[in-house]
């Protein structure tokens, strides 16, 4: 089974990289860009009996390792 994990900085954490990307896009003429938040994306292949089990396992992995709960939040999608 394949799961996707999206890790992003919490809204309360300033994202300097996202800010720089937003500035660069505006420099390219994309005046409609208001903000960019940069994050991380993981694809996890795992063996699981069903989607529910897979989702719970991957959420646990995200909480323990893939994301740092002090600064990041995550979202899990099972395909």
């Amino acid at each position, binding site marked *: 089974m394949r799961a996707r994990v999206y890790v992003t900085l919490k809204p309360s*954490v300033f*994202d300097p990289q996202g800010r720089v990307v937003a500035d660069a896009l505006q420099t390219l003429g994309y005046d409609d860009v208001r903000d960019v938040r940069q994050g991380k994306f993981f694809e996890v292949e795992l063996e699981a009996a069903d989607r529910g089990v897979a989702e719970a396992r991957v959420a646990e992995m995200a909480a323990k390792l893939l994301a*740092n709960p*002090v600064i990041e939040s995550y979202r899990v999608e099972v395909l």
Partner: protein
Amino acid sequence: MKFAVIVFPGSNSDRDAYHAATAVVGEQASLVWHKDTDLGGADAVILPGGFAHGDYLRSGAIARFSPIMPAVSAFAARGGPVLGICNGFQVLLEAGLLPGAMVRNRGIKFVSRLVPVRVDAIDTPFTRSCSEGQVLRMPIAHGEGNYFADPDTIATLERNRQVVFRYVDDAGQTTAVANPNGSAHAIAGICNAERNVVGLMPHPERACEAALGSADGRAVLQSVVKAYAEGLVAGRPAIVR
């Protein structure tokens, strides 16, 4: 006394820390590979700077699972003095031995320069030889040194005087310009509630001899030597001023 300097794959200040502990302050030290599981009877532990495990995932995120880390945690829990320098500080944060996290420097760039750092708490084993408010000139060299914690954690750190080092200007004042990375409350280093675990982004071990541009960092290592000589470290109660 004997220092243990932990060596992770990607550590690059391990030899500097070893040199500072031995040649500069005249104590014993051993380099302890991250796959070892005991500290060899060390009286103080240094987690050095560098890029452990290539900083993959997040700085310090993989290093905290190294086989040596349970021994470091147990040593810290017994009250033993633990110093995390730069990447070593990031490892302590990821391991939960210190609160908070590091994010990318506010200005994006990797910053490598000598900065003034004020000592705001002298009741830790690593600042015992300093005076309160003393300004030490030490180099920083990091891309992710922007200290972040939620407001409650920051308030707790301030209330308990766990902010040990702050970025200041030459006059010893915190200013926006003097903060090189955007750290909350100009935090350059903190300690745990028990005060025996200290982490800082500046490199005291790279500022131990005049030839390096500053010898101010020597006070950090001399402090723990003094604390040890006074019987105030390793499993004994935390230092009370």
